[in-house]
């Protein structure tokens, strides 16, 4: 008689469609794998996640997994988990701790790498262009990890190439309305100067596309649109020729997580980093791949 494994999972929140897809993936994978899932939503607050992890420790779950709201600040609570002998898996985002034994593995994407990929795509795209290439950036929520890293990744790549220039950068809070509103202002202020829109997620890119179209511009043609996540909406826009490239950031971590949990409970050794397969989808492949997309 095998005891059901209990997994405590502390989710960041439900702040975006991406996150919802992530949650759905984890829940359904747990069901399939026959794992008893304790789920909690931290509403984007670190203290709530810490509380949830504490309560999982109190409930003596078998494994704890969570998507950290922020990189830092996990040492104390993870030390408690370690003391209680409960292994911890990180998903989606990494953390910054000295003692690497505080977590067993990290499954998920690397925002910095995503930013670099987008930057590389830009380099390729404008290889034969003398420039200057003016970029407007739609940042995510100020201070959030994806916003920080997607920005940093891009900068890493383009800082050596003087023809790329970020002429404006504003936060659209990862939302469609935010992206649209910022872009409306950009369109009026910079007009034809813009060559590239670099949006930190698909929602903002979609908003920006609406704003450009209303101003009579042709996104994807007059202006290149670079976006992240590769959600369903993003793909649709790509197929319609309005987004030029979408860097994937897969929310479908559920199956990998469940496998890892089972392996852990079975006593197997896990690699410190389980990388999810993520690619860059240029516009050219969009139509072909779209039917296979799950989110």
């Amino acid at each position, binding site marked *: 008689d095998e005891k059901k494994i209990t997994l405590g999972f502390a989710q960041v929140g*439900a*702040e*975006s*469609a991406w*996150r*919802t897809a992530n*949650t*759905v993936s984890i829940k359904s994978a747990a069901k399939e794998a026959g794992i008893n899932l304790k789920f909690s939503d931290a509403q984007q607050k670190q203290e709530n996640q810490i509380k949830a992890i504490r309560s999982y420790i109190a409930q003596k779950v078998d494994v704890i997994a969570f998507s950290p709201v922020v990189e830092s600040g996990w040492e104390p609570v993870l030390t408690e988990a370690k003391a209680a002998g409960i292994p911890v898996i990180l998903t989606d985002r990494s953390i910054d701790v000295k003692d690497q034994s505080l977590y067993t593995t990290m499954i998920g994407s690397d925002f910095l790498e995503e930013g670099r990929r987008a930057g590389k795509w830009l380099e390729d795209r404008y290889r034969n262009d003398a420039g200057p290439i003016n970029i407007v950036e739609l*940042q995510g929520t*100020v*201070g959030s990890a994806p916003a920080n890293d997607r920005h940093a990744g891009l900068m890493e790549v383009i800082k050596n190439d003087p023809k790329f220039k970020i002429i*404006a*950068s*504003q*936060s659209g*809070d*990862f*939302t*469609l*309305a*935010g992206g*649209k*509103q*910022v872009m*409306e*202002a*950009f369109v*009026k*202020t910079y007009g034809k100067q813009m060559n590239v829109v670099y949006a930190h997620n698909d*929602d903002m890119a*979609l*908003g920006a596309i*609406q704003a450009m179209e*209303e*101003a*009579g511009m042709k996104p994807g043609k007059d202006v290149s649109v670079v976006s992240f996540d590769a959600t369903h*909406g993003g793909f649709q826009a790509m197929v319609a020729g309005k987004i030029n490239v979408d860097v994937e950031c897969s929310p479908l971590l559920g199956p990998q997580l469940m496998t890892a949990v089972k392996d852990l409970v079975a006593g197997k050794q896990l690699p410190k980093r389980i990388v999810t397969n993520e690619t860059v989808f240029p516009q050219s492949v969009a139509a072909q791949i779209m039917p296979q997309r799950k989110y």
Partner: protein
Amino acid sequence: MKLVRTALAHPLVWPVVTLVLLTLLDLAHNSAFLSIRMLDGHLFGAPIDILNRAAPLVIVSLGTTLVIATRGIDISVGAVVAIAGAAAATVLADDPSQVGLALAAALGTGIAAGVWNGLLVAFVGMQPIIATLILMVAGRGIAQLLTGGQIIPIGAPGYLVLGDGYLASVPCSVWIALAAIAATALLVNRTALGLFIRAIGINPVATRLAGLRSASIVFGVYVFCGVASAVAGILASSNVRSADGNNAGLLLELDAILAVTLGGTSLAGGRFSLAGTVLGALIIQTLTYTTYSIGVPPEATLVVKAAVVLVVSVIQSATIRALLARHLQRVLPSARTRPIVEASE
């Protein structure tokens, strides 16, 4: 000279001055800021954007103004905006031709939300902030429940025209906001509601003893605020052609309350100014637009916002105005200043 003095004493002068200053700042940065041209048969330009964007905020702020005037507060408006958008989107997702039904659903949720808040505040006697906090927390959950946590795209043209279309070259949402302002102004000025609301806000006990059914009026004001939020929700969702249960109207309540206070209405209840509120909302929207267009770095926008809010409220302050008046008096000795009326108990 007398004109200057009377003008300076008018409570709406400073909001107007702020608005003008912000516009000048924009102009300094981009000389074409005020230029409006025709594009595809409708007006196009930064001022139009600002008006268009400000429309939902203006409408919500109207509702909030009345609630605040009764000494209440409604922090659930953002959530109601989300629910209303989600409700409309859900209807339209089933059948894009049912625009009427979608509108009815959105307004219906607004009324229901208002009724709920109104019941808790006026008849159960909960403190308004807590009563509406309940809906603020749960409402977003309800909106997400409706959308399944997804962003639901809206494609029905009849619905989209409201927030994204044009009527006589001017955005429909601007017309709707104007209509809302006119309707509210009529409601409070041409009926006795304005008097009743002010009286309740200043002294609820005495108002009740004057024979007024205060509870019903307070209830009605919350319903009005719910409806206003629903209208804003329709405009917001229609403008971005989608309903987002989590992010639609996020923190709108703060902006609305800020608009009301910038417009000179006291949160302690009583006298209120609809025109002030509209100006307040325009200031907020212009400020947002300005930070985008003059290229304030995103990490500095909050500091800029703080500075503007502080400056606007400081120059509006009675004390500062009294100082100013005294100074004016020295400059124009013949002029007898109008002392600042001290709000007595």
